[in-house]
């Protein structure tokens, strides 16, 4: 909990800036997640109070959207595209390789805390499938070797 309280100044700053925007909830959630890395529990009551919503309404919105996290992310987030175009170019085999290399299912975080996996359905890179997004950067025309190298790079920087 004390950790969470540390986030209050950030939350208050975002709320002070955005709370009077029409339809402010999504921009506020995005801003908090951007600054803190996730939506801490402490934020929910603050947001609800500022926007005159119930706690349930705020929770409902957070849980509806796949993007919002309520726990801190790993150091790296890897989102492999699992949609049709990438599937037609071997995305399922790449997903299996990831599961094996990281000993994870499609939604997990690796034991060393280096990588969180999340599926994504299309990155708009379909003319160069298969594709993934790693920490906001898209990589396309992915090969098994390239995927392995990207994952290894994430894990190595975890060691230091």
């Amino acid at each position, binding site marked *: 909990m004390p950790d969470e309280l540390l986030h209050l100044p950030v939350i208050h700053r975002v709320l002070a800036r955005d709370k009077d925007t*029409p*339809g*402010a*909830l*999504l*921009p506020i*959630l*995005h801003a908090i997640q951007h600054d803190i890395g996730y939506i801490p529990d402490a934020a929910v009551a603050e947001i609800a109070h500022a*926007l005159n919503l119930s706690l349930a309404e705020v929770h*409902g*919105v957070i849980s*509806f*959207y*796949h*993007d*919002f996290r309520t726990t801190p992310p790993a150091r790296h987030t890897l989102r492999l595209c699992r*949609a*049709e*175009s*990438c*599937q*037609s*170019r071997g995305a399922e085999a790449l997903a299996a390789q990831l599961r094996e290399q990281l000993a994870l299912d499609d939604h997990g975080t690796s034991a060393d805390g280096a990588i969180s996996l999340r599926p*994504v*359905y*299309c*990155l*708009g*890179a*379909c*003319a*160069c*499938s298969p*594709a993934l*997004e790693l920490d*906001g*950067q*898209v*990589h*396309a*025309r992915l090969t098994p070797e390239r995927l392995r190298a990207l994952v290894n790079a994430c894990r190595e920087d975890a060691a230091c």
Partner: protein
Amino acid sequence: MLKLYIPCDSVARAVGADQVADALQREAERRQLPLDIQRTSSRGLYWLEPLLECDSAQGRQGFGPVTPDDVPSLLDAFTGEPGEPGEPGGHSLALGPVEDIPYLKTQQRLLFARAGITRPLSLDDYRAHGGFAGLEAAVALDGAEVVAAVLDSGLRGRGGAAFPAGIKWRTVRDAVAGQKYVVCNADEGDSGTFADRMLMEGDPFLLIEGMIIAGLAVGADKGYIYVRSEYPDAIRVLDQAFAIARDAGYLGSDVAGSGQAFDLEVRVGAGAYICGEETALLESIEGKRGIVRAKPPLPALQGLFGLPTLVHNVLTLASVPIIIAKGASFYRDFGMGRSLGTMPFQLAGNIRQGGLVERAFGLTLRELVEGYGGGTASGRPLKAAQVGGPLGAWVPPSHFDTPLDYEAFAAMGAMLGHGGVVVADDTLNMASMARFALQFCAEESCGKCTPCRIGSTRGMEVVDRLIATSDMTERHDQALLLRDLCDTMQYGSLCAMGGMTAYPVASALKYFPADFGLTHTEAAQ
């Protein structure tokens, strides 16, 4: 000074455009060679990305796909003695004049006229290539005349439903309200599509111009662009473009000397496919869960915050400037039947030459997939193409001579949707794809109605049982059940999410029964 062009498009960057630009800069410095690198939009010839271009007397010469390792030999060629710069005929990556590449030369680029040519955030580039001609013409017209031009052009919504745009414009214009909105649907959730992304990243002022014209014509002074969070580059480019447009007087209290106000704001989605559905999208902008609203009321009358709202896809709004600049009849001369104008088709999946192909409606799927696309990337036999995103049908090659026309596709139980075409070779299993469609629906359903919410999960179980069983009677029963379920979803769902998930499933079962362990006759029963 040697002048080179290389795209800043996010997918060109995803295959190494930045590394090539950096290598060029470094190598030129090492050689003390003055070099000007312009970062333009992408031509959309993605199989050639990173595509490097160089000025020459014959227009821009192309080289691609380039890797950083090619940079020294390319610079040798550009600066070599024989021939002029940009005519290093012999280089192994030389493609000749870019505009003569048949893939590009045979296109009819109206929306993507500037693609690969201009720098996305340069107003000067935009103006020098026809930008703002539509707005200038619109400012001189009465709003009703603008609406009439959109109606006459035959433009239909490019987001999927293909509803005549002009009718929506008239409805919003005629609605009496103190506040109205223009909302651009840039959620582009359909897999296999990327034209909205390309346009926002590469030619943001075109979308802005289209939205301004719409706002002035229907009497809205505020516009939102709802962009999916998977497109961070588009979001950044749009925000920068708004600031530039505001400084230049195109946005703000007096738009382009019209005396009317209009301004824009980006709203970022949060990873929910259903928020591409227009009413769910409006809920999302309002700060709620993306639950589909029942219609009526129409968004045109009671849309965002309950007020009259014009909702259109990126490509629909971006088509407007050219319609106003060149006239409705210019635009409607492209196309066939009731599918008028041009459509940026997007070639994706297992395809040799993936990219954007803007053509008038009416060319065949075969011309697109085999002509432009050059067949499968794997070189294996072509099995099917899914047209129109995850809710589109899988079309077998026997139907590839169908013209790309809204009505022709509807007649065969398919749809054009947003123009995405995902090609598959014979290794892709269609029973898996049917299961995937149902799984996607189960994950992305807004949950409001039962056929979609429950039917999709039930459908997955049915496909699993169908594939697992070796008992033929059981298999038939499950296939029958699957078809029934498709019918229930198609006719009992509130929106096309549940309604059209039946398309990929039913088409997979109909055309590829062997993947389900059935014969054609069995599947047809």
